[in-house]
């Protein structure tokens, strides 16, 4: 009879840049249970809403996470705008969609690199991060920052992108697309990548739905869930079709992100072509009195920003339900029955963001 062992995985682990801990209960090389433990760096940002003016809080929302910085701020602003009945100018909505898709693009490319590093393909990691630089350069030129963009605000955006710059961005993304195709070919066709990812970490469509999976984790199992189809920001004017795979394994999750890279480039091109003239913000008067759940599709999936105010400039409640938190139950389910050697790949293909989770 196999002997049971408990293997601690994290909070410091080579494949995890952020702290999360699992107690992996194993029998020989098989994981039979996984017990998560989070909150090593819980920041309590949600309660800062009680002490920061709701307009200034955009800077806090921006800092919930580095990779999803813009989308956190956009989700928060959307919630406040809905409560206050603010009509955001169309140009600002398009600019928000452009920056949101650039965020998705750099997040997914970064993930591809980190995943390659996890299964021992270091040259692929370096190539991925080299390509990501071009997106960060676009951020720097359009917002003045590379990670925490600080460009979204209640009532619109803080910066505009002129027509020439936008044309240049679209051209550079065309160049990036060619390089991404080369990179993607390796991920899709290389024997060692397929060998490490195919059939590993399988989760069925039914389990993904019941366990509340969101984002690429859900779409890789055949669920067509993508909050962009709600039509927030400028997505109502763009052709957005959820990228869905059906295999439900690590390889399918990888394929979803690869295809979403090209989708993001296409959406930016669409938005650039339809960008209307006009102002980029409106003046905000008063303070929120009411509540709203804003739903946004981040690179990792559906994020919810709940805002509740009573007419004062300090809000009563701000809650963020991040996609990683929603994907943890499925992660536990997938880990049970897996091989110990596959655990890093399984956890990484969920693309956990502990910074978001420890908001």
């Amino acid at each position, binding site marked *: 009879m196999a002997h049971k062992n408990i293997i601690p995985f994290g909070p410091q682990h080579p494949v995890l840049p952020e702290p999360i801990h699992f107690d992996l209960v194993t029998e020989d090389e098989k994981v039979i249970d996984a017990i998560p*433990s989070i909150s090593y760096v819980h920041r309590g940002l949600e309660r800062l809403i009680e002490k920061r003016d709701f307009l200034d809080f955009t800077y806090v929302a921006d800092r919930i996470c580095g990779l999803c910085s813009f989308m956190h701020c956009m989700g928060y602003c959307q919630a406040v705008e809905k409560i206050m009945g603010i009509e955001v100018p169309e140009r600002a909505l398009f600019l928000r969609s452009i920056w949101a898709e650039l965020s998705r693009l750099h997040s997914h490319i970064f993930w591809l690199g980190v995943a390659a590093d996890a299964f021992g393909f270091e040259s692929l990691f370096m190539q991925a991060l080299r390509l990501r630089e071009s997106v960060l350069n676009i951020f720097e030129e359009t917002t003045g920052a590379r990670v925490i963009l600080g460009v979204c605000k209640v009532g619109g955006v803080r910066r505009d992108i002129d027509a020439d710059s936008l044309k240049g961005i679209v051209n550079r993304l065309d160049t990036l697309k060619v390089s991404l195709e080369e990179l993607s070919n390796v991920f899709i066709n290389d024997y060692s990548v397929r060998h490490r990812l195919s059939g590993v970490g399988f989760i069925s469509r039914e389990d993904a739905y019941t366990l509340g999976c969101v984002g690429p984790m859900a779409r890789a199992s055949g669920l067509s869930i993508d909050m962009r189809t709600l039509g*927030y920001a400028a997505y109502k004017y763009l052709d957005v079709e959820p990228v869905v795979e059906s295999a439900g394994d690590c390889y399918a999750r990888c394929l979803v992100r690869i295809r979403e890279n090209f989708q993001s480039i296409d959406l930016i091109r669409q938005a650039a072509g339809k960008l209307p003239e006009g102002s980029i913000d409106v003046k905000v008067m008063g303070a929120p009195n009411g509540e709203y759940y804003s739903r946004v599709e981040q690179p990792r999936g559906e994020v919810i920003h709940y805002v509740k105010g009573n007419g004062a400039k300090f809000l009563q409640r701000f809650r963020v339900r991040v996609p990683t938190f929603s994907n943890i*139950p499925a992660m536990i389910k997938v880990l049970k029955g897996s091989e110990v050697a596959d655990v890093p790949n399984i956890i990484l293909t969920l693309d956990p963001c502990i910074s978001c989770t420890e908001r």
Partner: protein
Amino acid sequence: MSELQDIVHVEKRDLVGIVAQFFAEGYRLVQVGCSTLPSAYELTYSFDREYRFKNLRTTLAADEEVPSISVIYPNAFLYENEIHDLFGVVITHIAVDYRGTLYRTALSTPFSISNVKLPEPPKQKVTASGEKPVTVREQSEVPGKQE
């Protein structure tokens, strides 16, 4: 584009039954959230089916227990452990109960009533008759417990 968002207030005793009905109708559990009120907690259960967003809301007194819905939605256990650890709300029969060890916080139950001082609503001008102005919070707090 504004999303339609229903928030239905339910009694605690009806909660599990209504949640089971949502499950039978094919809704997915999106989140379970908690808000601190001056002397109570507000639990909101959010569901989605084909982008239709619905919420069930129940209000609990400070020391009141609430049954877990993790027997219906297995992913609810994580939200319920979170609410227990951050707010101190006692949720009974959680499928996987970490007994307060999910969150490592320096302060125990940092979101609980005793630790949260909610921002005051804006002051309103005193009316000519001298009546005390009515605030939004006073109107909405703990339905059914105002009398």
